[in-house]
């Protein structure tokens, strides 16, 4: 099963995938941005500041999803001691951190004209900040701890602890009074976003996911090269 992601054979496929994503990425980005920034209607209440949502919501989703993936892979890695999984989680972490910060920053920019404040210590925003701290801890564990085995162990545990935060973020708006509005898109598929706005949102999600895939593949490649060059840190 893990033969498919065997680092020594995968180089060729990574290269091909990167080229493929590169060929469609910019076209899709332009299409999605045109829909999000020009063609979609302004909101009846917020006006044009609704366009921030097209970056904010997908970023937050990606931030949450990346950490969930990191935590699940970390658990597998911790149990079965598969080192390759750690290269993958190590490659996902910076992307997750980037998008979590992006969600916080765009949310802050959106909050000023809509709520009247840049920042509020409400449950959703605070738990999102905690998520970004977990990302930083995870990355720092790899950077600061010299001994590789120990670094992997510590980062795995950090990821598992951080996993508890994910449902807290998800349900924070339902459990407590928050300034942040409840989810517009429910898990059962119902949504309170008008289709003319939902379409650009989904397009932006697709584009940002492609971007994630691109960065992930490039980072993964770099990690493998690093291991091969050093020759000591063998898989």
């Amino acid at each position: 099963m893990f033969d498919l992601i065997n680092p020594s054979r995968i180089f060729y496929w990574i290269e091909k995938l990167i080229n493929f994503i590169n060929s469609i990425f910019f076209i899709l980005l332009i299409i999605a941005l045109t829909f999000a920034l020009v063609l979609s209607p302004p909101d009846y209440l917020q006006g044009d500041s609704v366009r921030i949502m097209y970056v904010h919501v997908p970023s937050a989703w990606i931030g949450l999803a990346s950490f969930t993936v990191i935590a699940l892979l970390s658990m597998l890695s911790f149990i079965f001691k598969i080192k390759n999984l750690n290269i993958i989680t190590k490659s996902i972490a910076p992307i997750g951190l980037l998008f979590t910060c992006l969600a916080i920053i765009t949310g802050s920019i959106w909050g000023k004209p809509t709520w009247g404040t840049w920042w509020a210590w409400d449950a959703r925003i605070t738990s999102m900040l905690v998520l970004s701290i977990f990302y930083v801890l995870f990355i720092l564990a790899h950077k600061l701890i010299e001994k590789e085995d120990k670094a992997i162990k510590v980062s795995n545990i950090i990821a598992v602890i951080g996993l508890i935060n994910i449902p807290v973020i998800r349900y924070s708006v339902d459990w407590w009074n928050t300034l942040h509005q409840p989810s517009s898109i429910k898990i059962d598929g119902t949504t309170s976003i008008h289709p003319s706005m939902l379409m650009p949102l989904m397009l932006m999600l697709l584009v940002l996911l492609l971007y994630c895939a691109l960065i992930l593949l490039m980072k993964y490649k770099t990690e493998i090269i690093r291991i091969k060059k050093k020759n000591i840190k063998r898989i």
Partner: protein
Amino acid sequence: MLTKKVKKRVSFLSLLLISLVVAVFFILTSLTNNILYFKSPTDIQLSQDIIFNKKMRVGGMVKKDSIDINNQEIKFIITDLKNEIFVSYKGTVPNLFSEGKGVVAEGTLKDKSFFIADRILAKHDEKYMPPELKDLMKKDVK
């Protein structure tokens, strides 16, 4: 694949996860009062140990036809459809502050139904739609 060591690690992880969930659950439930970003008028009516003249936040809906603006202050009523609270405020309000919409007021409570705000935040709901649609909906209602 399931050697003794693997089983040991699985049980360690599950123990860690369970204890974490329990710990986080207890921490969050005991902190509920601090986590709540604002109290609703009903919360204030029901609570016994309320401290007056202390900074707090009240949130709910701005009651329809309750906004009264004169050149000194803005007065309005925050409602959660069960209880109401009068709010008096001096200053500028955010753009989204309007009747029938969510609002959070930051300030001090004078008594259980009178609140002096020194900051008003607008709360946005989860609905997003183009303006034309909103106009259509209004016409339907009329």
